[in-house]
């Protein structure tokens, strides 16, 4: 089955704002998604967690919008919204009933144009407390909750901006000043650093008029600093291991590897391969560790794509009671090693392709996801049309490409192994990360 082609327009306002629009009148819904080319990788030591704290501040009002009123107006209009921050970017989005598109555009423009008019110490302090509670809830008070932070720190050297997690540190959050926030805004929040995607049930001519009317008067920042060269060696150099005592009943082993950057066809191959290794109950790791040998409670493996030098391939297995950690680790690694030695079978590849195809069909069925993807492809690769080609790239992956990338990535000298073991309470930090790490959101 072929996905229906996504037709879109791609243009720039004089102030540099990139506007990508795509009509789809199936449902009375329209999605607005603004991507800013700024993420936690733009943070400097001592100011970690800043991009995300700032995202919260973006909901605290602007010249014509009161504190928390942005969300109130969107919800009262029957819409949904959120903001998310991740290593490479920050985005803000609204999904609206189609007749409320203009409101979403006006709200996004007002905060881009006038955030600092409304910013106060009180609001900053309030959101700092909220974010600290977000960190406690999502990481510090959860079983295994520190793994993501630890993997990043092991996989990337101290001087690389992927070394620290997006949520930041408590000390840095405490130190964030009003002036820091203002400076961050003036530097990165400019129309020429943003992509605005509009997808769904709307008239492009009217939408373009609105965009010009609301965003057109916001000046560009001609001097947005560019990040230096973030390239890295393909492997970390030697195996790194850490044992983490935590308040957990079952040990869990996390594996992390440096992987090819997002956009590289080798990462496509790794993603298709991770379906075959751990993409469900028919996958190799699940079959062997969970079903046949019954040594693990669960297994997982996935790639997190980043554009700045290297991505992360990560996975874990939870060790069943009365099974040794060593046995689970060696079975897991044996499967990875085999993956780099022999090509997958035709049937395995065909099943993975069919699943990837259905997954793409499911996610691209929603205008919200389509807007997000087009803004992402425009921001990270200057190529919104990737929305029409990415599935083809996945389907073109061959068994040899999967074997080759597995051999490059799953090497002992590119491996981080974190072993969470039960500790006597109280532990300082604890917690259950059943899910894949998420970007940081404004609201749970």
């Amino acid at each position: 089955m072929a996905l229906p082609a996504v037709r879109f327009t791609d243009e720039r306002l004089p102030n540099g704002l990139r506007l990508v629009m795509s009509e789809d009148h199936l449902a009375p819904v329209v999605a607005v998604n603004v991507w800013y080319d700024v993420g936690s990788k733009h943070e400097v030591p001592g100011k970690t967690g800043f991009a995300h704290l700032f995202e919260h501040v973006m909901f605290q009002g602007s010249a014509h919008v009161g504190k928390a009123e942005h969300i109130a107006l969107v919800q009262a209009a029957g819409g949904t919204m959120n903001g998310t921050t991740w290593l490479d970017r920050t985005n803000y989005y609204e999904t609206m009933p189609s007749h409320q598109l203009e409101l979403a555009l006006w709200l996004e423009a007002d905060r881009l144009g006038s955030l600092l008019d409304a910013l106060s110490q009180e609001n900053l302090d309030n959101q700092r407390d909220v974010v600290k509670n977000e960190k406690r809830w999502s990481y510090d008070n959860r079983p295994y909750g520190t793994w993501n932070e630890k993997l990043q720190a092991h996989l990337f050297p101290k001087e690389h901006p992927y070394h620290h997690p997006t949520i930041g540190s408590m000390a840095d959050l405490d130190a964030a000043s009003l002036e820091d926030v203002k400076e961050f805004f003036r530097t990165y929040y400019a129309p020429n650093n943003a992509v605005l995607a509009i997808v769904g049930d709307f008239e492009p001519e009217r939408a373009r008029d609105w965009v010009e009317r609301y965003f057109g008067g916001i000046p560009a920042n001609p001097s947005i600093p560019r990040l230096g060269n973030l390239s890295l060696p393909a492997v970390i150099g030697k195996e790194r291991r850490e044992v983490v005592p935590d308040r957990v009943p079952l040990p869990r082993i996390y594996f992390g590897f440096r992987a090819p950057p997002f956009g590289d066809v080798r990462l496509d191959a790794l993603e298709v391969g991770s379906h075959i290794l751990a993409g469900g109950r028919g996958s190799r790791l699940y079959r062997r560790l969970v079903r046949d040998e019954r040594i693990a409670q669960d297994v997982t493996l996935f790639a997190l794509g980043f554009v700045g030098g290297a991505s992360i391939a990560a996975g874990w297995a939870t060790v069943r009671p009365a099974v040794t950690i060593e046995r689970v680790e060696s079975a897991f690694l044996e499967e990875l090693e085999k993956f780099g030695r022999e090509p997958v079978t035709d049937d395995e590849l065909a099943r993975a392709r069919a699943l990837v195809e259905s997954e793409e069909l499911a996610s691209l069925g929603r205008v919200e996801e389509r807007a997000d993807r087009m803004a992402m492809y425009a921001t990270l690769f200057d190529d919104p049309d990737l929305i029409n080609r990415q599935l083809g790239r996945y389907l073109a992956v061959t068994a040899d490409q999967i074997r080759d990338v597995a051999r490059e990535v799953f090497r002992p000298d590119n491996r981080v192994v974190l072993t969470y073991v039960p500790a006597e309470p109280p532990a300082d930090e604890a917690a259950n990360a059943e899910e894949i790490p998420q970007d940081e959101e404004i609201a749970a």
Partner: protein
Amino acid sequence: MSVELVAQRPTSGTPRRYEFPPFERHRLPNGLTVLTVEMPGRPLVSASLILRNGASDEKPAEAGATVLAARALSEGTERYDAIALVEAAERLGASLHAEAGWDATTAGVDVPAERLEPALDLLAEMVGRPTFPTAEVDRLREERLNDILQARADPRRRVEEGFVDTIYTPDSPYHRPSGGLRETVETLRPEILGGTHRRGLDPEQITLVVGGDLEGLDVPDIAERLFGGWVARPGSARPGPVVGRSAVPRRFVRLFDRPGSVQTEIRIGHVGLPRRIPDFHAVSVMSTILGGLFNSRLNMNLREDKGYTYGANAGFDMRRGAGPFSARAAVNTEVTVPSIREMLAELGRLRQEPVTAAELSAGRDFLVGVFPLRFETPGPVVGALAGLVVHDLPDDELSRYRPALEAVMIDDVQAAATAHIDPDRAAIVLVGDAERIASELETGDFGPVEVVPAEEEAGT
């Protein structure tokens, strides 16, 4: 550098007409119901088979059997072993799944339209001819026992389990997790799971819902071929009444000690409501104002005003019987007592004072406006129809949802709050560091404080 913005807020355009997608009802000669929803332009079709054996109908000694039986459906059938079944589904690009909740067992598949029939064939095989192989059931049972251990260690799951165990009497199934307790799960064997599953295998009680771009597909005809031969199995049964009785005569605090916790997980609430109630729409608006919107009273107070939490919310979990009502937040340990005080005050204020006109329209307009957004793709549409089946609601329930919300007024909201929220008979259930908060809780005037020690925790 001058910025030119438009101060004037835009007004809304004209809403496009929206109707929940119409569905057709068919009945196979053996009594099985088929609902089809045509959604042009949606090539990924969603199908769900709804069996009316939920966890609330299982014997207390077999608690967890329904959930485990649903998980075991894909572990082997008369024609396929587990691997062959999952591989056959994957070749179709189909995700085949089955799960059970309090009210039903649901098995379903999402698949591109042109492969619907072979996917439904696998669904029929999985639900109609499971074999519950002993070795696989043993494994799933052990996995569930391990999951029970894991849940104890996770404050979010611990507080939910502690809350329902506190508010319901032990003769109510809702006092336990739907997945069962250690002592009951340990006894589950293939014959028990088989018996549990057969409770739902009466075609008169089964509904197949299929939604998506169905052009060129005769779904009732396909269903007749695949499900038309099903007959009621011995032991099949209709769902019975569910006991949902409160174990909280007056307010008290139960704190599950978790030394070293940096936050306290808070649940405040009591036995709530079943889904089938006359004032459903008023309750929906009321709980949206209290704790559903981002700008709800709880979230604005605890998060945006005080910064105590990443988020506070509240709601009714409506089931066939009276599910729980709770207000929820995870707060910084130091502010546990003030947080509880604010939450109780918000519950009381909703009863005592009418909501403002602005609050009413915020809550109502959100629910009305967001309704079409929820049903963009087939999966949620099929899910909503499954809800009608499970709760025996009329066919026009979804099309009258928005007009019924529009008719809710300020008095209705207050009446719903007064009738269904009672902070004086609420349990306050916490997971947190007793050493840091127990004595302050005693002074809080919240009612008696009971601390469940951490050692006891570990031993259960």
